[in-house]
């Protein structure tokens, strides 16, 4: 990777039961993937509040990746279905706000699919590199308000 190449920042929300375990397997299997992805472990993809996605963009992420169990495999029965509904509706909103579809990706990755974590992370990094940075205009006060709440 050249020094001058754009390095997208990707925030990933992985469910602890499937995708996070798969990401562990990726490491154990010594598969390397783009270091542009920052993983946040959640109990379930259904825990992803659309506010988390927007907050990631607000704080400078160029893309957000959400990983959950395959349909039918959710540890909590239907959390991943709720994630699918919320993310699809959020995507419709983001589209109208000028945020490209590629910046928000939802993937089902089971605990045994370490190589899928590698592939998805690499693909998304490449796509966002082509797309370029997400340039939001943020009124100053909001960054401060968010920091205050943390």
């Amino acid at each position, binding site marked *: 990777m050249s020094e001058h190449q754009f390095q997208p920042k990707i925030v990933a929300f992985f469910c602890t039961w499937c995708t996070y375990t798969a990401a562990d397997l990726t490491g154990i299997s010594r598969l390397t993937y783009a270091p542009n992805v920052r993983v946040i472990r959640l109990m379930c993809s259904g825990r992803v*509040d*659309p*506010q988390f*996605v*927007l*907050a990631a*963009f*607000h704080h400078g992420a160029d893309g957000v990746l959400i990983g959950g169990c395959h*349909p039918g495999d959710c540890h909590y029965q239907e959390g991943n*279905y*709720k994630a*699918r*509904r*919320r993310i*699809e*509706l*959020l995507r*419709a*909103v983001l589209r*109208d*706000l*000028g*945020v490209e579809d590629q910046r928000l990706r939802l993937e089902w990755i089971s605990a045994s699919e370490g190589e899928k974590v590698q592939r998805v992370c690499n693909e998304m990094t490449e796509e966002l590199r082509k797309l*370029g*940075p*997400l*340039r*939001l*205009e*943020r*009124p*100053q*006060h*909001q960054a401060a*308000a*968010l920091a205050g*709440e943390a």
Partner: protein
Amino acid sequence: MTKPKVAFYWCASCGGCEEAVVDLGEDLLAVAELVEIAFWPVALDFKRQDVEALEDGELAAAFINGAVRTSEQEEMARLLRRKSAAVVAFGSCAILGGVPGLANLYESQDILDTAYREAPSVQNDDGTLPAEESRVAGGTLTLPAFSASVRTLDQVIDVDYYLPGCPPPTGLITSAVTALVGGKLPEKGTVLAPDVALCSECPRAATKPDKLLVTAFRRPHQQLIDPDLCLLAQGLICLGPATRAGCAAACPGGNMPCTGCMGPTSGVVDYGAKALSAIASLLDADGEDEVTARVAEIADPVGTFYRYSLPASLLHRRVRPAARHEEEEVAP
């Protein structure tokens, strides 16, 4: 004893908030007994110089409605901030950006072109647009600058209290004014309305099913609305579950779904995200195609979920394409 002085001012708004003050009716007389109105351009003959002549902090409270779009609005907001002990953001536009905030979906040039050149009712053969300076016989005329985006009041000045609603319900206005002039000041940053969801005061609440699933979204004009049944249970997008109470559920009471003018309850950073999350959770769809079909039934998702809050949202406005950004950066 001298009465505390208050000011009312409007920025980018429709005048409905001013109307809400007048709607106090006879209660307005009681308010006028308690306070001296030092500035209220829409109703009384005051000039900017009258405000400038006040001591800093001399106004007990300034009630400012409307979002901030022009340089004049920004100047007046800053002036009133300096002259006031407390500033109240009055109504959805001042607090969240309001309906005028949906202009953040467009570029300012596109807005001017549409309004002054392309609208079917406009005849403007020379293509003249409003300019900050126009030379005419006899001198130069000036207009306030039109900024690139709509901002909320607290994106421009420090705000002490928030009085939500489009417009704020009269009961909330009376209690806010009484509390402020009576010296019963709540904690700074308080939203002067109940901190519970609208469903708690909705007359239809009892008919809200325990497990609510929406098989198809419909718009109010597409069906006869049952006047008693929960609107969500009828497939209408009612934002009551995500919206603050305080309006006595005026819209659901009038057979229309809540559109969210009271804004979020405390703890919510981005109203639209929370509202869409609440609605999406109700979709009776599991497969990808089904979900896509349900989502496609929602006309104008941004206008539905961010009707009053786009400027206050985490994204603030529609993202400008990269090329446009670069043009702006080189522009002076």
